[in-house]
């Protein structure tokens, strides 16, 4: 037990009839970075909420830092930091005041609280903006402030729920650097994301979650190696042609290796070696309105598609939707 920072044991969360998280178990070693990868509504936030004691599991339990989230939530709270998916800073106060209150809530007193607040504000590059009201911060600055507020008490275990949502490429890189830095310091990190590059790049281990269930778990390389051969994606202009395309390709390649995905917009072909069959495939496709044909090297996106029959990307949130999402919260 002691070697594990987090052990989730058959976590279930239901909201009325809706099963948000269903029988989720995994364990995360100390100092490990673990990513929960899944589309919108998969149950990532709900899992994080249970692990961070914000909501009680309907059944099951988890040990975080050796303490039960059900029976010893206060002890768990002392050890963890949480950067929630939605913003939490008080926008009527300054960045400085926000971080300082956070420090004090973790029992850091007097001068020490100010030192720690200064440390994290400098770390996140917000020091010169500390006296501005948070309402005047940009979206990226607000995300950074959330992280500063969650790090001020130097937690052993850090939860990051979609930390890079709405960030531009450069800010995302910066955030990844912070994650690596925390990892070097021995912090256990659990993050959720629906960007598979992010999961692949940052984490030692990934669990893929869909409809509240973990469908695969392992190191990114390990998950990718489950996919043998190549994948060819045929993007169709008219999804109604999908059935005909599938049967035409089945005739050519035999059954079982051709699957429609994304509601017929894409047909996925699994082959040993793409280069040798590609000419035949292209010939078989003449007469259909094809937008593109791509040979795809296996990545987590492929793993997800293989396991769920849906693409991660089509369901992911772009920055514009993210902003809408934020506005709705107001």
């Amino acid at each position: 037990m002691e070697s594990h920072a987090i052990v989730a044991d058959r976590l279930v969360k239901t909201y009325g009839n809706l099963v948000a998280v269903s029988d989720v178990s995994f364990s995360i070693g100390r100092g490990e970075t673990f990513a929960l990868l899944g589309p919108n509504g998969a149950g990532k936030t709900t899992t994080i909420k249970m692990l961070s004691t914000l909501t009680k599991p309907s059944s099951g339990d988890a040990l975080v830092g050796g303490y039960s989230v059900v029976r010893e939530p206060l002890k768990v709270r002392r050890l963890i930091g949480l950067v929630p998916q939605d913003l939490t800073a008080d926008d009527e106060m300054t960045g400085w005041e926000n971080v300082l209150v956070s420090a004090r809530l973790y029992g850091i007193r007097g001068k020490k609280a100010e030192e720690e607040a200064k440390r994290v504000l400098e770390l996140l590059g917000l020091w010169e903006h500390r006296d501005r009201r948070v309402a005047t911060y940009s979206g990226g600055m607000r995300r950074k402030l959330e992280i500063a507020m969650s790090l001020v008490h130097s937690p052993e275990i850090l939860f990051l729920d979609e930390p890079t949502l709405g960030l531009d490429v450069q800010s995302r890189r910066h955030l990844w650097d912070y994650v690596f830095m925390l990892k070097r310091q021995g912090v256990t990190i659990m993050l959720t994301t629906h960007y598979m590059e992010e999961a692949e790049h940052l984490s030692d281990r990934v669990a893929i979650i869909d409809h509240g269930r973990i469908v695969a778990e392992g190191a990114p390389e390990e998950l990718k190696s489950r996919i043998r051969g190549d994948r060819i994606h045929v993007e169709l202009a008219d999804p109604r042609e999908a059935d005909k395309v599938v049967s035409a390709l089945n005739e050519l390649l035999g059954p079982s290796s051709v699957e429609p995905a994304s509601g017929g917009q894409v047909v996925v072909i699994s082959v040993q070696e793409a280069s040798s069959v590609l000419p035949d495939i292209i010939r078989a496709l003449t007469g259909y309105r094809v937008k593109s044909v791509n040979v795809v090297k296996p990545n987590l996106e492929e793993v997800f598609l293989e396991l769920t029959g849906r693409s991660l990307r089509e369901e992911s949130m772009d920055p514009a939707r993210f902003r809408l999402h934020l506005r709705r919260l107001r």
Partner: protein
Amino acid sequence: MLYETLVLLRREVVKWVNRRPVLVISIVTPLFWILLFGKSFNLLRLISLEAPPFPAPLAEAFQRYVSSLLVELFGTLDYFTYVTSGILVVFALFQSMFSGVSVVFDKRLGYLTRLLVAPIPRGSIFLAKVGGTLFRVTVLSAVLLLIADMAGFRFKEGISIIDLLGAWIVVLLVASGFTSIFSSIAFHINNQEVLFALANLVNLPLMFTSSAIFPVEQMPEWLRSIAVLNPLTYAADLTRYFLVGKEIGDPITGLAVLLVFASASLLAGYHVSVKGMEKD
């Protein structure tokens, strides 16, 4: 618990002081009310002594008569003094409602999430809201009395610090009781409109069925029976007793009623609020 409550209370105070326009409006509103209510109803002004329409002795006698009538009616020499001493507790009620609204905003803006994941007793979140109201009503009441004094408020003869403390405690009891009620509701809802609707439903009736702006003795029978159940009646009578010297039989009963009201609301509000925080 105390330390965490103080940390959060400090946030309440910082936010209130930072919000200049709200601060100004909070002070102007009660002034506006008492000047409007109080001064426009000032019956004594009807018979000014400066240009009496009748012979001076007659005017004086008449004024003495009206004064005694007023004292009998309101227990104070003028309506301005009457209503000012009552409005103190009405504004404690209003400030309590604002506390409830701020709970809903903390929820909606996500700040509550930040507090719930911190290793603090959840009760401190509730207590800080109560403390915030106590701070605000203390400042507002002091400012109100200061300005009322300049506008001709008639404090009782030989008013002492004990009287002022007494009135202060009455206002604090009202604020603790109502803040407990409003915030415990607020911890269970997600929409500030609900709270506003609720406040509309109860605030004005509470005010008009109390002795805050009109004497209970002058009310029709049915209204009077409601008024004696209203904590604001006891509170307004007590502030008037302490500040103006109005005769009210027995101040201890009133204080006891308020004390029971405040502690019962605090106790229930504490538990109901913490329950609300645990909800999904």
